[in-house]
């Protein structure tokens, strides 16, 4: 169970203006401004739930994921993930979660994918029998087979994402965070990734939190969506209540417009 309560987070960034004069000026005097990334964010997620976390760029999605996965400490507020405060007991916490960043890779570029898996086995201290059965199961579900013997740099984006997913699940995490997992994928790979996530949630009861810009992802995977804009939770509810009938892309565009984000 995940509980976020009144979480706030601000950043301080250097102002930068265009032009040669501005560059010279900022060399001697630099101005900063405060940006509010999260403003009193609260929600809770039950075990085994799948949640779509949506909002425009810069709304605070990544910040939330980073706080939940123990990378960031918020300015104020409470957060409990299965009874743990992520940023306090980092090692204990992250042993039980999996994270996929869609735009980054955790695989070693120049060696076969399976070698990266072996390293992860040591990193997470996964017992040999658990590791073996997980690799077998994930290979089957994600159709990895031959891919595992190929160096990551030779894989297509879709193949690589399937491997990334497997890599994040080797240690049987209870919660899986997916940050734009289908970005840049072709249609076939997208469908494969979606189907896998659904199956994972059904069979292992893994809690899945997904951020994406692709509304088909949301439709295929989650029942519940949380909409965030300018650091605030704007909407938290069942997807069918919101869309009713009609195209989800339009519904979401309509939502963005009505909240002026």
């Amino acid at each position, binding site marked *: 169970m995940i509980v976020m309560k009144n979480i706030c987070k601000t*950043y*301080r960034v250097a102002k930068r203006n265009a032009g040669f004069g501005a560059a010279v000026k900022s060399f001697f005097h630099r101005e900063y401004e405060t940006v509010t990334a999260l403003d009193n964010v609260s929600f809770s997620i039950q075990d085994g739930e799948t949640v779509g976390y949506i909002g425009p760029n810069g709304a605070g999605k990544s*910040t939330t994921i*980073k706080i939940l*996965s*123990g*990378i*960031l*400490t918020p*300015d104020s507020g409470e957060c409990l993930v299965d009874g743990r405060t992520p*940023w306090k007991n*980092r*090692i*204990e916490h*992250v*042993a039980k*979660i999996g*994270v996929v*960043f869609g735009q*980054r890779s*955790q695989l*070693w*570029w*120049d*060696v076969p994918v399976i*070698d*990266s898996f*072996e*390293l992860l086995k*040591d*990193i*997470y*201290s996964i017992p040999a029998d658990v590791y073996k059965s997980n690799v077998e199961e994930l290979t089957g579900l994600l159709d990895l087979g031959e891919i595992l013997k190929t*160096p990551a740099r030779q894989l297509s984006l879709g193949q690589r994402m399937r491997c990334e997913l497997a890599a994040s699940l080797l240690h049987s995490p209870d919660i899986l965070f997916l940050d734009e997992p289908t970005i840049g994928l072709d249609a076939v790979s997208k469908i494969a990734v979606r189907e896998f996530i659904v199956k994972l949630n059904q069979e292992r009861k893994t809690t899945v939190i997904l951020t994406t810009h692709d509304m088909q992802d949301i439709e295929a995977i989650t029942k519940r969506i949380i909409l965030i804009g300018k650091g605030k939770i704007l909407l938290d509810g069942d997807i069918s209540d919101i869309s009713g009938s009609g195209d989800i892309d339009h519904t979401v565009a309509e939502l963005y417009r009505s909240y002026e984000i």
Partner: protein
Amino acid sequence: MEHSIMEKQRKSSAVRLYFHYISIQIRCMMQYKKSFIMTTLGQFLASFNAFVGIYFMFRRFHSIAGYTYGDVLLCFSLISMEFSLSECAARGFDRFSSLVRQGTFDRILTRPRNEILQVLGNNFELTRLGRMVQAIIILFYGISQADIDWSFMKVITVVITILCGAAVFSGIFLINAALCFFTLEGLEVVNIFTDGARQYGEYPIDVYGKRMVKFCTFIIPYALVQLYPVKYLTGRSDSLLYALIPLAALLFLLPCYALWRYGVRKYKSSGS
């Protein structure tokens, strides 16, 4: 109870994990054999240049501040061995800024392992082993050129000097990485204390004046792993203090580690 067992398991396999990292890096490197050979050759030339510089300077001047060619070669070889050892272990910190920029450090934080171990493992480079081989050759040559009246204690001094010297260099590498949490620019200055120390550490530190000796004794303890033990080894001093003083250099690691911890905390609160 269960927790402490897990903790033990993790600690016992930390070394294994590190070697796993190295083995995977070696496999990556093997994909680029020619590149490896070229880089090793380049690094060999770098050491060779330093040696050529010393050689020709001594052909012309014969001594510097009362030190002979052999004395200087001893310093040169000790420093390059210290540097190379620490490079093998800790130079991974050098590329830390790119780890932060590419978000790899975020990934590291999502894993149930000590951050330092992962950073080092992520950045091991095989070419450093090539440098290590060179450093060993230089060490034997330097020791053979130096006029040392060997005793058991002197062997001990050589060993602890090298190990503690490697620790001092590693401390600087750690500071370098920790500074990335505060700024991603301006880290060039740390080069003075890594590459600079290696380059200028080829001459005994008192060549650079009394103030430099003080600085390198009390602030960044390079003198403790070069000047004082060399005085003992070459018979300029019989003091047991000079023989064992390298051990005091280990204290330097404490503030370095504290800065790193502080940096990680700051990173987690600012995310940049």
